[in-house]
Structure formats: C-alpha cells, structure tokens
C-alpha cells in the first residue's frame, strides 16, 4: 500500500513538474506551406515564407470580420544561412514557425545556376520537423520570392496548387517530374544518377499576383505554370530539357503513367493521337570494349485518342502500322532526351546505377569520371514495343465518310 502511494506520488510529481515541454498549441503555430529560396546581390540568402492563414482557407462558420482576406501571408527574410533566417523570421511573426506541413521548396533558377543546391539541402534533411517528402521545384526566370507570393485560384493555398500540378501533370502529361527532398538527396549523392527538377514559370504581370485581384477574376492575371525540366550537374543547374526531350526523359525514368504521343500519318503531322495508359521501361547495361551499352526497353500500351485523317482502324494491319509509327516516334523522343543529356554531361537517367548493379567491377573504374567521360560516350539502344489496344468508342473516324 505504502509503495503504491509512493509510486503514485513519484509518478504524478514527475509528470506534472516536467510536462508540456514540447507542447505547442495550434493557435501558436504559423503553418508554413512553402519556402522560396533566392540569393540576393550581396550573396546572402533570401528565404520567402508562405504562411497559411487558416481562417481564410477553411470556410468555417465562425470566420467573421467582413471581407475574406488572402489565404496566405508571405514575407522574405535575408540571412547567411537557413537556420539563422528561420530564427530571424520570428521578428516578423507573432507565432512559432512550423515547418512540418511545408511541402514545397522553391529554389530560384539564379541560385541553382550560380551556387547550386548542395549547401542548402542539409538543413532540411537534418531537421526532424521538415518533411523529406516535400517537393522541390525551380522557379524559372523569376525570383522564388515572387513565385511563393503569388496567389492561385481553385486551390486556395498556392503550394497545394503547385504540388497538385506536379502530381497530375506528371501523371497525365508526362513532361514534368515530381521530385521530393529525399529523391534529391539520393540523386545528388549517387555518382551514377543525375538530378532533374521541374521548372515553373510565372506568366503575367508579376506584382499583381500578390493581390486578391488575381484570384477574383475568371482569367487570373498571373498564373503559375510548369515548364521544363532542369538538369543538374554536381548540384548546379546546367540546362533545361523541354518538350519532347522532357517526355523522353520520363520514358526512360519509367515515370510515364499516361501521356499523349502524336504520330505522322501519310505526311500529315500529328495525325493520330495515341494515349498511353500503361508503360514499362527497363534499362539494362552491358559492356562492350570498356564502353557501356545501355538497352532501354520500353513497352507502352494505350488507345487511340483522336484521328485527323481517314484511317481504317478496323484493320489489324493498319493498327500494326500505327504501332510501328508510334514506336519510331517514342524512340525518337527517347534518343532526343539521351542526346540532350549527353551533351549536358549529366546522367539524369541513372544509367550509371544500372552499370553499377550489373557490373560492379567495371563501375569501379568508370565511377570517378562517369558524368564527364563515360556517360557522353554511352551507346543507347532503344527498343520500343507499342500496343494499340483499343480505339475508343468508334472505329473509323467520321472523316473517312465525309470525304467521299
């Protein structure tokens, strides 16, 4: 009995005397949704914080106070390193900065080109609060600050908009890539794998993007658009891959979930649109005379989306011909991407890792100068198997009767 009492007293005193150390009330937190990192003329970092204004986001019933304010607040802080900036930012804010929900990291093109991102990553990686699943994008031609401060319609929180764009565009279009912090680190550290990040641009009159005006119109004054893939080498942005080459990159990376491939048919450009619904790419390597030869084996399945020319899709032969044409087209995209990357001397496809896995001994030799010496010389064979499984609701296009 005594012991129980002692135990109870001990326990309670320990509990009550020591509790609440790490407690943080929701009302004391500034929920940061995105971070933008720039470098100013003096070579100091400028970090822009996008902070959620909960009351203006959730349409709760007790949100009073007349006009709806902006869903986010954003401000920039200058400093020499990220931790300093984070602490310094508290002078601007009434609350504790809370990074756990920051799922977007915007890095300006300028910073990525001049200094690179190697030095930035550690602070995010080390902090247990920051999620390593946060996406990273490059703001093309604009300051990250402007990017982060721009309001967006539909998705009230701009970072959500960017993340969803990344996600759905990667899935449905296949020309941009959602890369998170963890992937970035993996790519940066591995000698056999280069880094690609998606770029975003701002279109329109930039200062207006920061006003509520922007989202009170059917046609927003400033829009955020995904545009291109940034190629990194040694942590620095070296080039942009755009258009079909970007598509080819995703084909090799096995990231295409659904996309559109247009083919030439009887001299008519983009005559038949092919919708990919399933895709599988296998990359294997073999060594020939000390030079790695990569085999990219692509298998695509899908259906016909639209046809501009009269073509008899009933005939298996025609389908076969379409498939051949598709294979050629995809092959072209992929080869284009490979050439681009080889020109940039950055192995963004992870060919080096494939070599590492298949021939560790050869890799040891190639490892040290992979990107600059070996990779540009790599021969890439592309083998594509495209299948047209179905052609939608109709067989022949109505054009075939129209022209008669």
């Amino acid at each position, binding site marked *: 009995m005594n012991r*129980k*009492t002692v135990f109870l007293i001990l326990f309670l005193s320990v509990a009550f005397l020591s509790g609440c150390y790490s407690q943080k*009330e929701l009302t004391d937190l500034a929920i940061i949704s995105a971070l933008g990192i720039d470098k100013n003329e003096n070579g100091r970092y400028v970090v822009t914080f996008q902070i959620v204004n*909960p009351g203006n986001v*959730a349409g*709760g019933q007790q949100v009073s106070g007349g006009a709806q304010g902006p869903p986010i607040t954003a401000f920039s802080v200058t400093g020499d390193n990220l931790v300093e900036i984070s602490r310094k930012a508290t002078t601007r804010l009434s609350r504790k900065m809370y990074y756990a929900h920051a799922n977007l990291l915007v890095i300006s093109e300028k910073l990525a080109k001049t200094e690179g991102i190697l030095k930035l990553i550690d602070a995010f990686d080390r902090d247990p609060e920051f999620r390593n699943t946060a996406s990273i994008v490059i703001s093309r031609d604009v300051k990250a600050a402007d990017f982060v401060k721009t309001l967006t319609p539909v998705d009230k*929180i701009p970072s959500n908009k960017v993340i969803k764009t990344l996600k759905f565009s990667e899935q449905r279009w296949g020309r941009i890539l959602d890369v998170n912090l963890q992937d970035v680190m993996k790519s940066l550290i591995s000698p056999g794998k280069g880094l690609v990040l998606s770029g975003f641009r701002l279109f329109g009159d930039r200062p207006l993007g920061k006003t509520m005006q922007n989202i009170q119109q059917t046609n927003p004054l400033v829009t955020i658009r995904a545009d291109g893939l940034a190629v990194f080498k040694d942590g620095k942005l070296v080039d942009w891959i755009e258009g079909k080459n970007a598509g080819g990159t995703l084909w090799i990376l096995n990231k295409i979930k659904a996309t559109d491939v247009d083919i030439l048919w009887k001299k008519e450009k983009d005559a038949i649109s092919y919708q990919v619904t399933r895709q599988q790419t296998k990359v294997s390597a073999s060594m020939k005379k000390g030079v790695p030869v990569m085999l990219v084996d692509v298998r695509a399945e899908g259906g016909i989306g639209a046809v501009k020319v009269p073509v008899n899709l009933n005939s298996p032969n025609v389908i076969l011909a379409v498939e051949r044409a598709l294979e050629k087209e995809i092959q072209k995209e992929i080869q284009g991407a490979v050439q681009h990357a080889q020109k940039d001397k950055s192995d963004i496809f992870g060919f080096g890792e494939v070599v590492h896995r298949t021939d560790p001994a050869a890799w040891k030799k190639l490892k040290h100068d992979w990107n600059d010496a070996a990779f540009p010389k790599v021969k890439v064979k592309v083998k594509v198997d495209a299948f047209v499984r179905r052609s939608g609701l109709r067989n022949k296009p109505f054009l075939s009767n129209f022209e008669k």
Partner: protein
Amino acid sequence: MPSFFKRGKQVKNNPNKKDGINHNLPQPLNISLAVNLDFINQKTGNSSDIVIRTKKIGTHTQLTTAVLYVEGMVNEQSIQDFLIESMMNNSKDLNALGPQEALEKLAEDVVSLGHVTWVQEWDALFLSLMSGNTIILVDGVKKALNVSTKGGEKRAIEEPSSQVTVRGPRDGFTESLSTNTTLIRKRINSPNLWVESMQIGRVTNTKVAMVYVHGIANDKIVNEVRRRLKAIDIDSILESGYIEQLIEDQTSTTFPTLYHTERPDSVAGNLLEGRVAIIVDGTPFVLLAPAIFIQFFQAVEDYYARFDISTALRFLRILIFFISIIAPATFVAATTFHQEMIPTNLVIAIAAQRETVPFPAFVEAAMMEVTFEILREAGIRLPRAVGSAISIVGALVIGQAAVQAGIVTPAMVIIVSITAIANFATPSFAMAISARLIRFAFMVAAALFGFYGVILGLIMLILHLCGLRSFGVPYMTPIAPVIPAELGDTFIRVPWWALWRRPSFISSNRTRKGKNKHPQPPRSRGIVNTDMEQGDRNES
C-alpha cells in the same frame, strides 16, 4: 515513511462489541408464553409491524397459543386460510392433549402449510420471524413452531433495464432471492444445479445464495467463493455490490473483476460455462465469478445471433472501448504535440476553428468532457420521464451554443460526442464506467507528453490488466496467457457447432457437447411437399 502511512490502521476492530447487539444468545425459549412474549416485545422494541395474536385453543385444556409474524413480510392470506382457520377448525382434536402433544399435533396435522420446523432458541426464532416466517408458541412448551409463510409484496418479473437485447428472453431478475433462483432453475432443469444459501450481514441477515452446476463448476473455484463469502464480516449487505467489493481479488483497480447481470439467461449461460453465481436477496443484480476481461464485451445476444454477426459486433465493441478510452487523449496529443501527423488540409481546418478559441486544447477537452459527465449524471438522476430528454437537449444546446460562442471548436464537440456514444455502447456498465475514469488519466498524459504519454499509459494499462486476477484466473485469459483452444469465444465467436468445449480455465468438465455437430441438412433441394410424395427426385 511507513509509520506515517500506517497510523490510520491502529484502531483494530474488537470482534465482540460490534454493533451493540449481543449475538451470543444461545438461550432457549422459556416455558411460559407470557415470558416469551414479553421477551419478544422487549427485543423488538414493541415494533408495531410485529403481529402477535394470542388464542386459546381446545375446548377443555384451554391451551394458550400465540401466532407471531411480521406484517408485510408474510403471505397473510395463507396464514389466515391455512393456519388460523385450520387451528380454529381442529380445535376439538386438541382437546385431550397436553401442550407438548398439542403443538406436535399442530405441526403434523393442523397446519396445512408447506414447510414446518421446530425452533428452540431465540436467535433462530428471531431470524425466521424477521425473514417472514410465522412462529407459533404454545404456553408450557419450550419450543416454537416455525411455519414458512414467506410472502409479501414483490415486484413482478420485468424486462431488465440495464441489459436490453433485441433477441432473447425478456425476463429479468427481481429483488426476491427465491424468484431469482427459480428463474435460473427454470432454465437449468438439472439436479446438478446446486444452491447453497447463507446469511451474511450481522444486522441485515441478508440471504445470499451461491449457485453453481455441480460437475461443471471447478471445485477449487467453488470452494474459494465459499471461503471468501464465509469470511465476510460486515453489519449489512444491501446490494450485491457490497459482496463484490468484499470478495474481489484486487481492490486497487477501476476494472470490475466480478461480472454482474440482471439477466437470468446470462447467468444460466455462465453457470454452464462453470462459473459460480452469487445471488443476494434484495437486488436484481447477480454476481458471477470468476470474471474475465473479454466477458464484459460479450452481450448475451452474441450467443443468439449468428456467429459472423456476433463476431463483427465484438470487434466493434473492442474498438468502441478503445475509442472511449483514448479518443480525446489522441485528439489532444495530435493537436498540441504532433501536428505533423494530421493531414495538411485537416490541420488547417482545425487551426481555423481554433483561431477564436481562447483555451488550450487540453482545457477545452477537459471542459467539454466534464460538462458531458455532468449532463450524463444529471440525466441518470432525473426522473425517468425527463432524464433522457434533458440530457440530449442539454448536450445539444451546450454543444451548439459553446461552438457559436467560440468557446470550443466543433472538432472537439465531435470528439467528445464520439467518446460519449462509444461509452454508452459498451455492453457492460461496469466496464464503461471504468473506461470513463481512465479516459481522464489518458487525457492528462496526452496533455503533458503527447503520444509518448499515451503509449506509456497504454503499456501501464496493459500491465495492470495482465496483473489482475479474478478468483485466481488471470483477467486477460484466454488472450494473455493465450490459450489457443479457447480463443473461439473471445474477440470472435465461433458458431455453436464448433464451440464444443467449455473454457478450461474455469470449468473442470470441458466437454460441452459432442464433436462434429455441424448441421447436416438433407441433400435434397426439391420442394418439400413434392418430395414427400414422390421421393427424392432431385437426387441423381
């Protein structure tokens, strides 16, 4: 330190001076009726509900007799019809007899009532008198006749209010011990249903019956129950809760280690699993020992419904129990310590709600929980007609108004309501109330240390539960220690045709029924009537 804690225990009870009542009355009755009646009057303080009717019987000898009973405790009709009238009618037969013989004659022939015994000592006399028997005294005899005329007002058998089922018998125990044993015996028509009666409570002399099925119940447990019941030394037993608290294995726990029920079918089922029932006169709640944790999540209906449905419901109840313990604690922990766990959109929604609330989450939660407890307690104590209405309206109004006033968040109201509803849905009230109490401890732990506090609390809770025993049976059997063969009636309930053994940790006789009693319907799929006429046409 020890001396400080022990100081309270210094006063030891003196067993001889317990209540000012001298129990050592092995005194025999006096030979004189007048002296006897005087003594009775003196002993009972001339209580007005004791009816003493003196009569002279026999035409010659003029024997003076007295009929005593306590008003309201007896069946007055039968006293009138079978005792007094028949004494009057048979008056002549008693003529030539002395007092002794007359009384014997009375006992043998005259009194046409069921149970007649002799009483020679005062304490026995008082005991039977007070429990509703009628005493017949004859002048000149040192013995008295004790006629069983128990009766009086009884509540009719009603549907039990605490454990309602959709399917299942509708009768419930009443306050009368004899009715209750009857209800059990009606279900178990076996000579092996043994009832052991005893009287506990020095003042109240409450009748307590220990019921078990001989041959199924484990003798060790029966003996243990008997030993503990016999060891009880208290002035009064007014409800089975007194006994529960006096015989349980461990006192410092919020968990019930004896099962109590108002349902005869539940008791019968448990007796057939080998448990011992303790019926206390004056309460419809019957105790069952030993109790195990999982038993409190088994409703009688589980055994009547199909096994798949009962299994699903049992899982639901375990979930409910967990919700009612840790839901508010989880909410407090997640919103004050681990906001990163909450999906971004949800955290923003909750944060938006919380913007206007002036209290920390824990204070808010505690406030709402306490308010709810007040409402619930009020709902129980209020007259039945208004009770439920008040509690619902109160909760709604307070919930709604508090949200609108910006004192609590809608999310918190949802959590509190879920907890409350979950608590109501626990089939056993004793378990539910224990969850109610523990919930607050978990809330405090969550407010102080977030999920770390909650998980440490859970580990302690599980250690505590695993350390409990009920009449020597570990509380968490058959889950921990796991007895694979007994798991059929725990979280899941296997169909009756597969439940062919009794729980080994309770019963000594394990075979419930034959093996392989899987229903085997005839293979014919034809229409019954045509089959009857034309034979099994569908059988090829």
